[in-house]
């Protein structure tokens, strides 16, 4: 990174990306397009078998006699599968051709630790062991690739207060947005000198460059530069957006409402990461899982509807995944323990609807868990191709086998 910034550079950086506006169509990448990817991560290990239900497989109900109650009111998808009763909006999107399911996503040698499996998905390396300061995530590397081609703020985290590993890049510092009203540089407005102070603080941020070779100092200066540039952009861009969907007043509803605002406003975001926690349903799973999927369905349904109404759904893809699925057999606490492969959802523009790939065989388990039929890196590769980001630069190699887009 070049740290020889002046305040004018900071402000120019804030203005570097052309405005999409109502016309859509950001076209600053040579031969590229303005497709955006939202990765929605269900933290804790979502029970895939009670999310996309293999309704016709007697072994499913036999392995989880209490949990199989969810078949009542499930939304049939055809092909012997149905969605959990709480997923009404997603089921509608599946039928309308705006959502797809990929069966059996996972990786070889599945790890049952939340933290390690989450990191494996984040880093996109099944052999990943422990994160260091140099470890990067796949969305962070994709943000690096886009930034090297002129994108100003290609990546964005929403709703968390720490940078998730998945957004850790080599050179780009990805901003994380919690609440819009906090994402601005406050000054002592009471004195009537607010603008003056803001300008002066910007001068200090631009001027206080760390000495060469100071890696941590360089990181801190880059965070500050990203923050002030982003805050300036938000001030300019976000005023015009009005939501065209009713977002539920839930944690995920608030996060996705904020995300929609950013995606629609031409902030330049191409890669976003957002989480919903609580899926570690070891005990008394039925009511807890129902509430979580209801929250997911309400918020995701609103996001898809809002983007659609703003004409932005066609260029947006949403991936919904978890760090692993859960054990096929229910445990003795009416819950499920950590498992392995699970289905993922892919919603939005250009997706070929329906179920993709082969569902794992309930008669061929690995220590009680489903065997993956789709390497998640092939899924990532398909999404990167959709974004026209070099998959080899991000994943280190080609990963074929998933063909999601028409």
């Amino acid at each position, binding site marked *: 990174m070049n740290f020889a910034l002046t305040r004018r550079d900071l402000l120019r950086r804030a203005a570097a990306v052309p405005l999409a506006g109502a016309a859509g169509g950001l076209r600053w990448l040579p031969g590229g397009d303005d497709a955006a990817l939202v990765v929605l991560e269900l933290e804790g290990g979502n029970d895939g078998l009670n999310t996309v239900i293999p309704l016709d497989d007697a072994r499913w109900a036999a392995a989880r006699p209490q949990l199989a109650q969810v078949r009542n009111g499930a939304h049939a998808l055809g092909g012997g599968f149905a969605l959990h009763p709480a997923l009404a909006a997603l089921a509608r999107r599946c039928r309308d051709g705006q959502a797809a399911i990929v069966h059996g996503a996972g990786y070889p040698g599945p790890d049952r630790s*939340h933290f390690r499996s989450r990191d494996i998905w984040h880093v996109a390396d099944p052999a990943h062991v422990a994160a260091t300061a140099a470890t990067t995530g796949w969305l962070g590397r994709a943000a690096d690739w886009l930034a090297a081609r002129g994108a100003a703020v290609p990546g964005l985290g929403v709703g968390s207060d720490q940078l998730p590993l998945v957004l850790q890049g080599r050179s780009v510092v990805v901003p994380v947005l919690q609440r819009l009203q906090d994402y601005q540089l406050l000054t002592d407005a009471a004195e009537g000198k607010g603008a003056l102070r803001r300008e002066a603080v910007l001068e200090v941020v631009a*001027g*206080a460059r760390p000495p060469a070779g100071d890696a*941590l100092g360089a990181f801190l200066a880059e965070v500050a530069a990203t923050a002030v540039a982003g805050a300036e952009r938000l001030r300019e861009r976000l005023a015009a957006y009005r939501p065209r969907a009713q977002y539920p007043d839930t944690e995920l509803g608030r996060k996705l409402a904020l995300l929609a605002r950013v995606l629609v406003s031409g902030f330049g975001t191409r890669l976003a990461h957002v989480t919903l926690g609580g899926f570690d349903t*070891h005990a008394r799973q039925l009511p807890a899982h129902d509430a979580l999927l209801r929250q997911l369905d309400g918020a995701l349904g609103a996001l898809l509807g809002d983007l659609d109404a703003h004409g932005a759904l066609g260029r947006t893809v949403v991936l919904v995944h978890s760090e692993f699925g859960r054990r096929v057999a229910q445990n003795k606490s009416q819950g499920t323990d950590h498992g392995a492969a699970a289905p993922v959802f892919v919603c939005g523009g250009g997706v070929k609807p329906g179920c993709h790939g082969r569902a794992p065989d309930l008669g061929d388990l690995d220590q009680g868990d489903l065997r993956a039929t789709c390497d998640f890196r092939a899924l990532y590769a398909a999404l990167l191709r959709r974004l026209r980001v070099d998959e080899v630069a991000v994943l280190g190699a080609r990963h074929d086998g998933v063909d999601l887009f028409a």
Partner: protein
Amino acid sequence: MVRWLDNDTNRKGRPNENFARELFELFALGRGHYTEADVREAARAFTGWHLDGECFRFAAGQHDGGAKTVFGHAGAFGGEQIVALTVQRPESARFLARKWLAAFVHPEPEPAEVEALARAYEANDRDVGRTLAALLRSRLFFSARAFRSMVAGPLDFVVGAVRSLGARAAPVRLAAAAAAMGQALGEPPSVEGWRGDRAWLTSATWLLRVNFAAELFAGRGGYALAPAPDALLADARTPDERADLALELLLDGVASDAARRALRAFAAGPAAQGRSGAGALLHAVLSLPEAHRR
């Protein structure tokens, strides 16, 4: 820990492995230093470790008193004995030493430093307090390699801003500010704890920190800083002296040449004049990269 790791449902005949697994993986050994069989057997030893409201309760009727084999040792172990066996593993000393070094000294400790601290811990009869006291008085702790080698956490930042000035402010407000920046006291985001270091700082939390500084030094937001910025900087006369004093107070006078130049320019400018000028100057110091290190 009992609640968070579901040990309340860990009963004889219905073991729940969560507590035993995370004791090994996250808190005492690290991955690769135990087997799945160790987890299963240790989980049985923790059966009956339950809760009664907010208090620990040993439910003897739910405890599995049978024989277990953990780390090659066999016996009718209870939870305390598993903890003792775990911390006696040689990997445990290294695992803890690495964590302490990464928390207090340098984010990437050298193997020799880890080894030395692990040995000191064992020589101190695995007394954590005595070991940390030795670490925090060591030459390593005061070395150039350790100096400001990490990103300050939210509590370091908000408490440091007040204490380095020798001032006082409402602790409840400071705790709320730190919580907004990602560190709610006693409430880590997951059982793994906070990632710490660079993960503390995003563009959003940077803005929250600098905005906190604006409010703290403007006397808004209920922080009630005493003494006020004017009084703190009253001894300095020229803009350069004021900038240097602000750096001295908040950053022990250690800042890059570029940072000092930028701050002196700020002190000479219109934003640093008048009634709110001293607060503005302190606000600007906390926007420097140096202010976010420890």
